[in-house]
């Protein structure tokens, strides 16, 4: 009891002078004990108020009553989500999944993958990875999948990792059966099928690739690639048959292609985060300068030809967050004529990467050129939004390059990323020619596509 009376008025009535020196008594007051506060009021009775606090108004009470059922509905809706969150954490589902799918060092594992494209639907499959085959981060990857665009896909790749120092070698093999690839004709104003605006064809490919990537200095790389591929084509079960809509003689290579491909690429890639305060996965500064040249050698009766192209990208940081303005120019041409180059091997535009707002590979011809501007800004640490305009077209020849009849696509996108990696991008794109395309992609749009693997 001794201290309670002493400090009774203390909280406000005593306004002690702040001290700057050691002037206070050496022994601070001891902590209160139960005996000290025995006669003190209980919590909630300390206010000294002689009146009662006003309660809820009638309007609020009525409003609360009216919202009772919606609140129950919300709780009911959220209940399974809450249960999932609870189970995820309570039963360590993330760790269990890792334990189930990966080894203890998390270098060997099998995991499911899925992909959604509005034109082709959902692909599902599984990947096997071994990220450290022989102790120098040598990488083995196997992938099988089915559904949507790829009815069947199987691929395998092995990379040398750090084993060869600045040189990384990759040896890969692919088998794909694509039952419904789209074809819209050749040229910038392709003929469209009468019913659904497109024709489809079946494609089966078998390919082996070897890629060597030499990091010469910093962002400067030399990349050499070689591939041998075998393509077979047939009518698709979907839509009007391709060879009824288009004359068979215009579909060069429809009877099958066998070729080898060799390519040399010079690449300067300084794209990176602008600041250590930004997530690593958002490129906000730097450039990509990539030029490639390759030779296709037919192993059957087809013609040989060259393929050359450039991919130029530049990122400008406009502000913290980051806010980024990016520019891209992509150009590609082949040396053969359209009656020599297989229709699937012509430079193409359209899709979720090149000339967004148009269907995948909607335009194809001997020359393709596209320029893109994208403005991206952060919504929070792990979300960003962007708006973009792509403009481009295909041409029959380099000397036909002109800005007339350029196709223009535009759209918006939301990107999610973690601190270290890109997670997904959902984009909604359209074009001056109409159409609406929703895509969910798990690769950044400015990443270089596996170009050699498409040949």
């Amino acid at each position: 009891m001794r201290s309670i009376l002493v400090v009774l008025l203390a909280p406000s009535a005593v306004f002690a002078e702040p001290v700057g020196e050691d002037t206070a008594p050496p022994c601070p007051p001891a902590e209160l004990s139960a005996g000290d506060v025995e006669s003190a009021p209980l919590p909630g009775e300390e206010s000294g108020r002689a009146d009662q606090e006003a309660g809820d108004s009638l309007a609020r009470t009525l409003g609360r009553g009216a919202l009772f059922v919606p609140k129950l509905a919300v709780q009911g809706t959220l209940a399974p989500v809450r249960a999932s969150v609870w189970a995820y954490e309570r039963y360590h589902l993330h760790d269990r999944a890792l334990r189930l799918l990966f080894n203890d060092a998390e270098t060997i594992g099998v995991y499911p993958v899925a992909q959604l494209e509005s034109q082709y639907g959902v692909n599902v499959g599984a990947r096997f990875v071994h990220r450290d085959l022989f102790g120098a981060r040598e990488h083995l990857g196997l992938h099988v999948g089915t559904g949507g665009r790829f009815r069947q896909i199987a691929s395998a790749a092995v990379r040398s990792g750090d084993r060869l120092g600045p040189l990384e070698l990759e040896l890969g093999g692919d088998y794909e059966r694509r039952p419904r690839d789209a074809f819209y004709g050749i040229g910038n104003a392709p003929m469209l099928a009468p019913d659904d605006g497109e024709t489809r064809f079946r494609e089966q490919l078998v390919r082996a690739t070897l890629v060597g990537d030499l990091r010469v200095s910093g962002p400067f790389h030399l990349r050499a690639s070689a591939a041998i591929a075998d393509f077979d084509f047939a009518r698709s079960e979907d839509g009007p048959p391709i060879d009824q809509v288009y004359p068979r003689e215009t579909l060069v290579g429809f009877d099958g292609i066998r070729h080898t491909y060799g390519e040399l690429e010079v690449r300067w890639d300084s794209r990176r985060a602008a600041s250590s305060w930004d997530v690593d996965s958002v490129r906000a500064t730097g450039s990509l300068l990539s030029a490639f040249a390759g030779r296709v050698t037919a192993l059957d009766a087809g013609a040989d030809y060259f393929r050359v192209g450039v991919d130029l990208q530049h990122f400008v940081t406009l502000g913290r967050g980051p806010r980024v303005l990016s520019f891209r120019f992509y150009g590609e041409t082949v040396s053969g004529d359209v009656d020599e180059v297989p229709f699937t091997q012509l430079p193409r535009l359209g899709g979720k990467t090149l000339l967004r707002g148009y269907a995948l590979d909607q335009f194809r011809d001997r020359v393709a050129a596209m320029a893109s501007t994208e403005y991206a800004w952060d919504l929070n640490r792990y979300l960003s939004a962007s708006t973009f305009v792509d403009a481009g077209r295909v041409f029959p020849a380099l000397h036909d390059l002109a800005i007339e009849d350029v196709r223009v696509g535009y759209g918006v996108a939301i990107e999610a990323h973690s601190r270290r990696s890109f997670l997904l991008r959902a984009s909604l794109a359209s074009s001056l020619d109409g159409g609406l395309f929703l895509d969910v992609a798990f690769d950044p749009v400015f990443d270089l596509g596996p170009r050699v693997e498409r040949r």
Partner: protein
Amino acid sequence: MRAAIVLVMAACATPRIAAPRFHNAAPVAAVNDRLDVPVQPKPHESLLGLYFFDGVFGRQVTRALELPRARRALGVNALDEVPDSTWFTNRIGVRELSLDELRRGPLVAGSPEPHKPWTILSSKRGGVSVGFVIRDARGEKYLLKFDPRGQPEAETAADVITNRLLWAFGYNVAEDYVVHLRRDELVLSPKATTKDAFGHKIPLDQAEVDRSLELVEIGRDGSIRGMVSRILDGVWLGGHPGEGVRRDDPNDRIPHELRRDLRGQFAPFAWLDHLDVKEHNTLDMWVADRENPARHYVKHYLIDFGKSLGFMATDAHNLRRGYAFEVDYGDILTSLISIGLWTRPWEDRTQPALRGVGAFGADTFDPAGWKPHSQAYLPLQVADRFDKFWGAKILMRFTRAQLRAAVEVGQLSDPRATDYLVDTLVARQRLTAQHWFRQVNPLDAFAVERVTKGHALCFVDLALRYQLASAVATRYRLRRYDRDGRLLSDDAFLAATERTCPPAILPEAGDGYTILELTTTRPGFSGSTLVHLARDPVSREPRVIGVWRP
């Protein structure tokens, strides 16, 4: 007729005070929340992911559908102050604290540093945050934590500095110390345990200890700097829920979201940039009474301040921390709509290049706009200007010397870092007060004093005391009302000084209940405080029985 109209109009125009009335009693300085709780309450364990899901999304929606009204804080006495309790003990707010007392803080057992070697008893599993439970040579148990590799001194310093300041502020905290050790001074107990990925207890081996220590900052000479936190006395009950009460604790009678001592944390937490606010960083202990160990009750602590003083932003490489919630719906929407043209306040934020200092500064600090890591901890979200004013006036009590004493406990190796932190704390302290002293009439320390011609009501203008406003530009107006709120007098403006003592004239009849309305006017601010006076029934002396800040 005209005279009658004027009289009626005058009667209608007479101001009436509708403020609350107070009992004619001395304000309460402590509450009795130490009633015996013979049966140990159930530990409150919430899963972190679910806690954030509810706090950031689920409960936000359902609470909005409950149409909660804004309520003033409870747990305050008639003077709008927080009485002592198992949650809060008035320290620097009401008395002088010596520098030595401030440095010592809550310490009882003393540092384990002279009592090596330390035996590792258990460990948290992996992750970036490494921690061991150790026992020193005396047998005292501590939680030992470290600075993450590449970020020397910052986390351990932030922890102990904030620990001392919040203790001085009035909160219960653990005994935290900065310590230095060498690898061979840690001995692994043969019975040491850790937990696997699924929470199962497994033996802790030397290899796991070595793996853990690879993640911490180790000096070139092999020395390791750490922070130890003494394991609290009593039985662990987990953190307190941010909403409602602990139902099996009869002393826990005020919903936590309405407690002034919890809502009032906003101002000091913003000042210290203590962002990692969540139930899991509070801790309730079922303790035995100091004088009667047979009696038990629950004592409430704040723990784990390592992410304060800007370190959470530094550690996460995220300058938004302190300026936006992790999932900040308002910011996301504003950024989306403005297509990124909105310049966020954190964009000009910088981190000083000083060893041991996080992204802690005053240049972009907004004491009202500060945001903790998430919106999940409800008391901070429903705190009003009165709660924040309460916090601001207590934190303003720290002098520069006291702040330096607290910062020195962090044992930063670079004296410039110590100077910087002290300067920044002072600057943020003043910014905090500057803001909240303009949201509420900053008159305080009301007391009736006997003067030559009767009695005077003396008060302190905190804005003048701390040189945050000009006395020349400040005016007070004093109106007197009776118990029923009828105007008795309307005095002329009073000249302002740091401490002003206008006459306190109370009727002789009855208890003389009188309400004094003090209105402060200065450029950009006008606000009132109602001070309730009455005569002590025994001594008949006037006294302050209540303060109401409209």
